[in-house]
Each structure stands twice: as C-alpha cells, then as structure tokens.
C-alpha cells in the first residue's frame, strides 16, 4: 500500500490550508445558524424593525408604541442624525417613527391635525406596512372619539379592537418555510466540501500525474491497476472520512434538534455531494499543474458554485437569468434538495420524490465528473 500511504502523506502536508478552510466554515455556520428557526409553530408574520423617537411620552404615544411592538420589533432610538442613518443603512430600523411633542394632545382634540414624521426606504414594502399600521391606529382612536367615546375609552377600545385578527391557515409544511439550524449547517457544507476535498486531494493527483513521476511509476514493478486502485481507495477514504467528521460534528452541535429532523435524508444528500466534490478534486488535480494555480481554482470553483448555487444567498433572491445558469451546477441541486428535506414533514414517496430527484441529479454530476477525469487521465497516460 505504498501509494495509499503516500496519498495521505501528501494530504497531511496540506493541513494548514485545510484547517483554514475548516475555520472559515465554523465561523460561517456558527454565525449563520443563529438565524435558524426551529419552528413548528405554524404561520408567523414577518416582523419589521421599527425605531421610535418619542418626544411626546403621552398615553396615546405610549399606546401607539405598545400596539406596534405587538406586531413588529420596536425599539427606541436616539434622535440623532448619524445614529438614525446607521440604523437605517444596516436595516436595524427599516422605519423610524418620530412622534413630536403634543402629538397625543392634537390627536385627541377634535379639529386639529396631528403631525408625525417618519424616515423609511422610499417605496418599500416595509415602509408601506408601517404607514398602514400607524394610520390604522390613529384613525381608529380618532373615529372612536368622534362617535362619542371618551378619550380614555377611545384609546382603550382602539387597543382592544386592534387585537382582533383574521384566522390564518397554513397549507403544507408546519415549518412554514423557516429554515432550521441543521439545514443551515448542511447548506454551508456545499461550500466547504468542495474547498476542503480539493485542497486535500487534488495535490495528490497533481503529484502522481506529474510528467517525470508518472513516467517513473510506469516503469516500476507495481502495476498500473494496483496504483489506480490505491488512488481510488485513498480518494474514497479521504472523502468519506471528511464527510463522517462533519456528520459527527453536526450531531454534536445540533444534538437538540438534529435527531428530530430528517437526518438520514440530509446525510444521503450530503454524501452524494461529497461524491461530486471528489469528482471535482480529481478533475482539478489532473488539469492544474502548479500549486499557485490550484489555489486560484479552488477559490473560484468553491466560491463560484456556492454563490451561484444558493449557498450564501437564497435561490429565491436570484434573478431568472442567473437561475438558468445555476441549474447546471450540482450545488444548485444539493441546496434545493436540502431545503425540501428540511421542510418535509410527511415521509412518503410522493413527498420525498422531489428531494430524491435532486440527489439523483447530483449522482449524475458525480459520474460525469469522474468520467471526464478518467478521460483526461487516459490521455495523460498516453501522452
């Protein structure tokens, strides 16, 4: 097993870059998986970040604030231009509501117009939503007042009435499209698998297919067949090993939720993807001839497929044209299946099938990559 041993000697020599990629991955997952929601809670409205500057501090202004905080994420912010600009840019506040002094008083007096000010992204959906809600509240207080309720009653009635709401039914998955931590973890695997496997495995093929070494090997006593088998075994061990490590880590990190999810399907999907990654690294190792170039190829291929395949930015946000291209990437199918598996709550064939389709397409990609790599290696051998 000389070749096999040598395989891992080369892999080991890449441990620095491998640990850099692994580090990036953990930074990413820890950060992003905090976005994950473990919701079986059915439909939930999207909350908009609203900042309020309350100069009035009257009963009415407080009631308005309470009403908005029931429906949105509301926080007080400083009446300072730079703070507001920052909060708005980073969308910590998508809407800033400024209630001037005397707002409550003028709302409660019959013929005065009440003045308020807001800052929002012009023409935005969230801006429209909050405009609507502020308008609804003020109008309701005004209307109750006009029809003869006392000031206090009007505010109380408005608050009460605004609690009533339409019933919402959820069709399909109880998760309502919210992604779980586990799904986020598996999503980022699509980036790290390609990068990590290529960084580890490609150099091996680069070495074994270097002109001089290849020629020396060809006239050695070891047969071509045994060498290739050992290389294949090495690739298999490296990929499956890498996959196992990440599976165990997933089970350790998300032990609270992962066993309730469709773990087996997640694993099936990701093992298929590591096959694709192995194919990519095989091909890259044959086509690229020096270390510097390999670094470039790894970054471009792993980041490129991750961006276009929907690892970093959800596929829904991409334009149609880009999506057309994305379909030609295995990552796209991996991510698509990953999402479907996450949302599955009925496990029968007709529900699993769409996800399985993606997994089979990945298998196709893996086969194609290996076939292409073998073709190249055949050519190299005779060259």
């Amino acid at each position, binding site marked *: 097993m000389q070749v096999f041993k040598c395989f891992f000697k080369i892999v080991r020599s890449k441990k620095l870059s491998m640990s850099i990629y692994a580090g990036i991955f953990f930074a990413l997952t820890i950060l992003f998986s905090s976005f994950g929601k473990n919701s079986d809670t059915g439909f939930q409205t999207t909350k908009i970040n609203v900042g309020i500057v309350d100069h009035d501090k009257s009963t009415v202004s407080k009631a308005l604030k309470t009403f908005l905080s029931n429906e949105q994420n509301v926080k007080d912010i400083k009446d300072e231009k730079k703070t507001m600009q920052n909060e708005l840019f980073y969308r910590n506040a998508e809407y800033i509501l400024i209630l001037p002094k005397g707002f409550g008083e003028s709302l409660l007096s019959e013929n005065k117009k009440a003045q308020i000010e807001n800052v929002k992204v*012009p023409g935005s959906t969230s801006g429209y*939503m909050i405009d609507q809600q502020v308008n609804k509240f003020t109008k309701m207080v005004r209307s109750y007042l006009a029809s003869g309720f006392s000031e206090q009653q009007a505010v109380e009635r408005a608050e009460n009435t605004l609690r009533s709401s339409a019933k*919402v039914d959820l069709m399909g998955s109880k998760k309502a499209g919210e992604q779980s931590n586990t799904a986020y973890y598996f999503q980022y695997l699509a980036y790290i698998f390609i990068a990590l496997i290529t960084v580890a495995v490609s150099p091996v093929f680069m070495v074994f297919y270097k002109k001089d070494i290849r020629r020396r090997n060809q006239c050695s006593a070891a047969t071509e067949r045994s060498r290739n088998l050992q290389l294949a075994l090495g690739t298999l061990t490296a990929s499956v090993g890498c996959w196992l490590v990440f599976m165990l880590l997933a089970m350790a990190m998300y032990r609270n939720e992962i066993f309730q999810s469709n773990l087996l399907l997640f694993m099936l999907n990701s093992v298929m993807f590591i096959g694709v990654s192995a194919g990519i690294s095989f091909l890259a190792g044959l086509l690229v001839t020096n270390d*510097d170039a390999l670094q470039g190829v790894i970054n471009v291929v792993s980041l490129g497929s991750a961006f276009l395949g929907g690892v970093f930015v959800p596929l829904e946000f991409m334009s149609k044209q880009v999506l057309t291209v994305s379909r030609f990437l295995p990552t796209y199918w991996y991510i698509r299946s990953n999402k479907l598996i996450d949302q599955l709550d009925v496990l029968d064939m007709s529900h699993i099938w769409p996800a399985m389709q993606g997994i089979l397409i990945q298998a196709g990609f893996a086969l194609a990559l290996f076939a292409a790599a073998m073709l190249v290696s055949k050519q190299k051998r005779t060259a």
Partner: protein
Amino acid sequence: MFWHLYKYYFKASIRNKSAIFWCFAFPLILASLFYFGFGNLLNDSEELKAVPVAIVETKAAKGAEGFKQTAEELSKKGEDQLLKVQYTSLKKAEKLLQEGKIDGFYTLGDNVRLTVKENGINQTILKEVSDQYIQMNNMVRQTIKEHPEGMEKLVKAMSQNMVENQQISLGNEDANMMVQYFYALLAMVCLYGGFMGLQSALHAQANLSDIAARKAVSPAEKLKSTAADFLVGVTVQFLAFLVAIGYMWLVLKIDLGSQAGFILLAGFFGCFTGVSIGLFIGSIGRMSRDTKSGLNIGISMFFCFFSGLMVGNMKDIVEKHVPIFNRINPAALITDCFYSLNIYDDLSVYFRSCISLIIISVLLCLGSFFMMRRKKYASI
C-alpha cells in the same frame, strides 16, 4: 538608481502570474459573483410590488361583500397597487398556491380566512389587509352597540385623514445595504496589497529568497531597494484597485457614491496600508516563507471578515460591542471611508479613518524598518 530599481521591479511584478491573478482577477470574479448572487437584492427588492392573491367565495359569503370592495380598492392599478386579485374556486386556489403562483388566498365565509404556504413579507401584507378589514368591522359593530348616535360621525372620521405622517429624508434612505459587500470587497483588494508587501520583504532578506541573497552582495543600499519595492507594491496594488472599482462602476454599474475623488484617495491609503501589513509580516522574525504567506492571508481575511465581506452587517455588530476594533481594523477603516462618503453629510468620519490608515501604515513601515535594518548574513 531608485527609479531604475523601481522600473525593473515593476516589470517583474506584473509578470508574476499568481500575484496578478489574486490582485487583479480574483476581485473581479468575486465582484461578479456578488453581483449575480445578490442580483435582485441589489436592485429593487424592497420595493412594494402587488401581491398575487386569490379570493374564494363560499356559499355563506354574505357578510363579506365589504371585503371584496376593499380588495378591489387595493388592487386598483397605480403606484401603490397592493393586491393582484383573482376570483377562483377553492381547488384552483389551492393549486395556484402550491405552485407558488399566488402568495395566499382568502376564503370568504361568515368571516375572512387567509391560507398561506409559508412565512414572508407578502403573506404578512395579506394578513394585514384581512386584519384591518376585521378590525374596522369590529369598530363599527361596537359603536352601533354603545354609541349608535355617533355612527354618522364615525363614518365621517373614518374617511378623513386627520393625521399627517410626513416622510422626511436623512439623505441616505436609498442606499442599498448590499453595497456594503462591495465596499468590503474593495477593502479586500487593498489588503491584498499584503502579497506585494510580503514579496518586498522577502526580496530584502537573504535567508528567505535567492533574489535577496543576490541583492545582499550588490552595492545597492537596502533602504533604497526596499523602498523601491514597496513603492512598486503600492503602485501595482493601486492599479488593481482601479481595475476593481472601474469594473464595479462601469460594468456592474453599482452605485458606490458620487465623490469619486475621495473614494480613490481612500483606496490609495488603503493600498498603502495593505502593502505595509505585508511588509511588516514579511520582516517579523525567522519564520519560513510559507508560514509568513499563510499568516498574511489569514490576517487579511480576518480583517476583511470583520469589515463585512462575508456577513454584511458585521461591522455594525462590532461597532456595538467592541467599537475600538473598528478603529484599528484596516479593512473596517477602508470600508468606513466609503460608507461615510455615501451616508453622512460631513467628512469627519472619512478624515478620521484616512488619518488612522496613514498612522497604521507609518507605524508598520517603521516597525519593518527597525526589524530589517543591519541584518547581515555571514553564511546562508
């Protein structure tokens, strides 16, 4: 002599394929990926668009005539058209929802019910529409019960707008947060100057490169030749910066702000800092070439990460928890320059960040100078 060294090192630098790839081509690739990936987010993703919805009437839909009227009003064509309504059967509505052709459907029975498939802002809007209808109905019912004499006034008040909610401008509402990623990318380009700086340092230490060994026995002054190398690094990196920003401006047409002169100036200081970082790392101690280059990549990625290259609002998170780090992280300082030009009206933050960059570069250069000077190699 200085310009002679400068000229030849410049020629050598632009023939270094791997450096050219990382400094010139890679940022362009990344910029394109950002552009394609963020596609819709960069343009008008937040803009209000009519929400496709279906209405299903059941036999008991007598109390819901008013809702149909509301829906009709909200789907009037125009700038603030909110709904795109179609009336269908229940089966058809379910099918449309399943296929994602509509975001939800209302079932009108003795009350209004909403059916959706997933959470989202459009679904939230649909809920708000039906909520509002129900709430208004409740108000009317309550008034009839308790103050029937006030009904007329109530109806009048409902149709009147007595509150003026005026939109004011801070000047930056249009700024798209996605631009942040491109700022961070430009900061990355600047810090990639580290490759060039590292190269200069390696070319000055005879134990690390053959070129330095040759240079050590030449009569050229070390300060002069290293300074020439450094300047070449800044030149090449600034060219890379120009290519990257030119690509964003002219090809991708990203709105980076209008003060081009100030943006380029900040880019220049950024490149200067990037090259200094590389020079400094290159001249620390006796680590091998590979370790130093690994360290260089690691450090620059670390800075870039905290300036928002991977997670757009990272800089804001840091600002809230460890603001001091934003004041010394070169990548954050560079993005701060661009950001402040785009968002703030005054230039105080811009100048503060530029001055910090200059101070950091000068300190690093001095540090490298003291570490490198008077090194002699008896035998290599």
